[in-house]
């Protein structure tokens, strides 16, 4: 589709000035164009943020994340305790009803958590398998016991949505996949696949009925079409504004652009096998310093990214504000290469997806050019994400571009997945596609698994982060993406984007 979208942008951009405003919609309704369609209405069947974004409107978790910084606050649980390393006790909200009228009780919580480990209906198998058992103390108290201490367990509770036990069991499984029955702020009226979803306010919502009564969500994957829908007044709010169009939207008097730093950071993973030139720390530093990140942001990202010095973003536990990027300095880089004995450079293959991140392919091309200036011959190997990610999981690569953010706001899980030595048995290093291995990092990381106290945990994770980013150059960080939205001006739409990109309509008013 790349070949198609580029001319689209050019042509559509040329006609922005004559944008037409459509008929004004009633004040209690909103039409939104989003970039990704829902896959299903089963809240456990897809762990992508794109699908969870829909589910968050129909369902509630025990906890939820609110506001621009994603603060963890109560939802279906009014409070929670952590009596011992393995137990999590949740006190449930009373008087909540599902959309079908069934009361919400501890049995629904138990049912929902047990459902997570069934691969037939769940992509949260990992979360499900962490759980030893769910004990119902009384109708409004549950204790969830994990097999191992999971420090970030509660942090993930905004993603695990509670389903109605009775109707999920009694309905046809196919129905459960297409018709959500939750406790959420909105009920699904109609889902015409490929066209639109209609949502109507749940007037009995436990947080109070949402401000906008009727929402129509139109998933439009093609960016230029999504944009045309906004410009022609058919929709009032759009997600996923492509950077190519950003400058032009900004000059359109009818549209207002909203941007916020995304949680996702883009970085380069680099292996460290002993016999490879890039296991030498001087070479790693040289590669880091050869990359002109400011230029990437200015030219490729058109200013819509912020430089990153580490993988986690500021709200994540383990983010270390003290870590600074190495300066862009090709002269020193060449010197370091010479010191390491690679004055003539070496060859390396840079892999990466070409349909996953903002400008991913262009960034990879730029990296190849920067590295060639210090003598490294880079062979580019960019491919569709469906081919690329399996290669990462299989650990077949040496050097690749990837992006990451962790829904739990806890760096520990990310590091186990990305940095720990690959260990099939323990399930570590599953996304460590370069077979990176460092005993110091492994040891410090494993020690964090027992630390639950947030302050202590933050301290150790920050140290670990510093060790990886400064002492070892485990990765070469590039930048944090920026999420871009556009709304029709003059409609009084109050919209504040969330860090996780979820579109939670109860948070929007107009």
């Amino acid at each position: 589709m790349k070949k198609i979208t580029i001319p689209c942008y050019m042509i559509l951009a040329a006609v922005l000035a004559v944008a037409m405003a459509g008929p004004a919609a009633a004040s209690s309704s909103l039409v939104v164009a989003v970039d990704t369609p829902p896959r299903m209405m089963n809240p456990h069947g897809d762990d992508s943020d794109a699908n969870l974004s829909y589910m968050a409107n129909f369902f509630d978790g025990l906890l939820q994340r609110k506001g621009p910084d994603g603060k963890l606050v109560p939802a279906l649980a009014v409070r929670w305790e952590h009596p011992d390393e393995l137990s999590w006790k949740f006190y449930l909200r009373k008087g909540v009803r599902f959309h079908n009228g069934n009361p919400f009780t501890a049995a629904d919580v138990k049912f929902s958590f047990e459902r997570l480990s069934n691969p037939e209906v769940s992509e949260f198998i990992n979360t499900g398998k962490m759980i030893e058992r769910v004990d119902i103390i009384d109708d409004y108290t549950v204790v969830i016991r994990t097999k191992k201490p999971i420090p970030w367990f509660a942090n993930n509770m905004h993603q695990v949505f509670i389903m109605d036990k009775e109707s999920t069991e009694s309905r046809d499984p196919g129905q459960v996949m297409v018709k959500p029955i939750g406790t959420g702020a909105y009920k699904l009226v109609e889902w015409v696949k490929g066209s639109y979803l209609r949502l109507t306010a749940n007037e009995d919502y436990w947080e109070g009925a949402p401000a906008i009564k009727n929402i129509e969500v139109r998933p439009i994957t093609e960016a230029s079409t999504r944009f045309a829908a906004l410009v022609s007044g058919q929709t009032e709010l759009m997600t996923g504004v492509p950077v190519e169009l950003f400058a032009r939207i900004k000059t359109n008097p009818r549209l207002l652009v909203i941007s916020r730093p995304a949680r996702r950071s883009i970085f380069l993973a680099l292996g460290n096998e002993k016999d490879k030139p890039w296991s030498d720390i001087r070479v790693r530093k040289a590669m880091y310093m050869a990359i002109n990140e400011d230029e990437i942001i200015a030219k490729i990202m058109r200013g819509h990214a912020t430089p990153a010095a580490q993988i986690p973003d500021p709200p994540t536990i383990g983010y270390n504000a003290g870590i600074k990027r190495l300066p862009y300095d090709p002269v020193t880089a060449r010197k370091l290469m010479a010191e390491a004995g690679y004055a003539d450079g070496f060859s390396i293959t840079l892999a990466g997806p070409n349909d996953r991140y903002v400008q991913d392919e262009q960034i990879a091309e730029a990296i190849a050019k920067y590295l060639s200036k210090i003598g490294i011959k880079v062979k580019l190997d960019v491919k569709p994400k469906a081919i690329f990610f399996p290669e990462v999981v299989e650990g077949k690569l040496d050097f690749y571009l990837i992006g990451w953010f962790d829904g739990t706001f806890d760096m520990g899980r990310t590091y186990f997945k990305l940095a720990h030595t690959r260990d099939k048995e323990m399930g570590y290093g599953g996304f460590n596609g370069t077979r990176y291995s460092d005993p110091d990092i492994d040891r410090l990381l494993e020690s964090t698994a027992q630390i639950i106290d947030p302050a202590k945990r933050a301290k150790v994770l920050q140290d670990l982060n510093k060790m990886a980013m400064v002492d070892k150059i485990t990765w070469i960080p590039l930048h944090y993406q920026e999420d871009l939205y556009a709304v029709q001006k003059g409609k009084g739409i109050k919209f504040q984007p969330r860090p996780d990109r979820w579109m939670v309509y109860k948070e929007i008013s107009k």
Partner: protein
Amino acid sequence: MATYIARRLLQGIVVLLAVSMICFIIFRYMGDPVLAMAGKYATQSEIEEVRHMLGLDQPSYVQYGRFLWNALHGNFGKSYVTRIPALGLILERFPATFELATTAICMSFLVGLTLGVLVALRPHTWYNRLVMAGSLAGISVPTFLTGILLIMVFAVYLGILPPFGRGKTVTIGFWRTGFLTIDGIKHLILPAATLATYQLAVLLRLTRAGMREVLAEEYIKTAWAKGLPPRKVIFKHALRNVLIPVVTMTGLQFGELIAFSIVTETIFQWPGMGNLLLTSIYETDQPVIVTYIMLAAFIIITINMVVDILYAVLNPKIRYD
């Protein structure tokens, strides 16, 4: 005739088998669906569990055999992405694609045929030369450009037609139709015109060439000489003979439109099967892709057969024995 149809049916089954086998071989290189289905944080053993659940840990000939067996029972498997039966998922989108393709093919057949005949009657006038030049553009301009240009002019500049989607629809039984509402028809015009452009140009050129050839034949001269009215000469004697290749072409094109209007559906965000196929390819949703391709093959085979039978109706000289 009966033996002929039986033979064609047999051929059709062989083609379907070949298609399914090719699909299977291709998908071995299309990426691993298990990874996405196990979730981002799954461990190796959890990934293996999902693989086992889907039967993807078995050798490919076992998988293929099981697929065939299930397909014979009308079960094409569940989509890996939505976990809904793949056939249902596709058939749900069928009305949208069918209505779009039907409208497009009617547009191109009527307009293409009429213009083709008119141009053939007076080939050397300037306006007919203009039509021919236009048809060349129709053939050579890619669909996505046509679509975007139409959106630009009619949706963005003039604002008289909607740029995307299907508009208001009415559900009759399982069939969701856009034909019955003004809004639905408005939404249909741009994508149908986009889809029709190429086909129209092809039919126009085909009709014109055929007409010019036939009009020079002796029997047409005889007809004129007999003093038959032009209507009779042109439509009854000339056009009927030209129609055979035109109908074949239209049939082939119709099958193609139903099966492969992917680009147009994507640009106009048309909720049809092509749109679904593209999404499924992005997400390595093998059951949906395989089912889709099998269905497309089935539709094309069927249409070709109908066209063959239509021959006999158009030209009684043709016999199938």
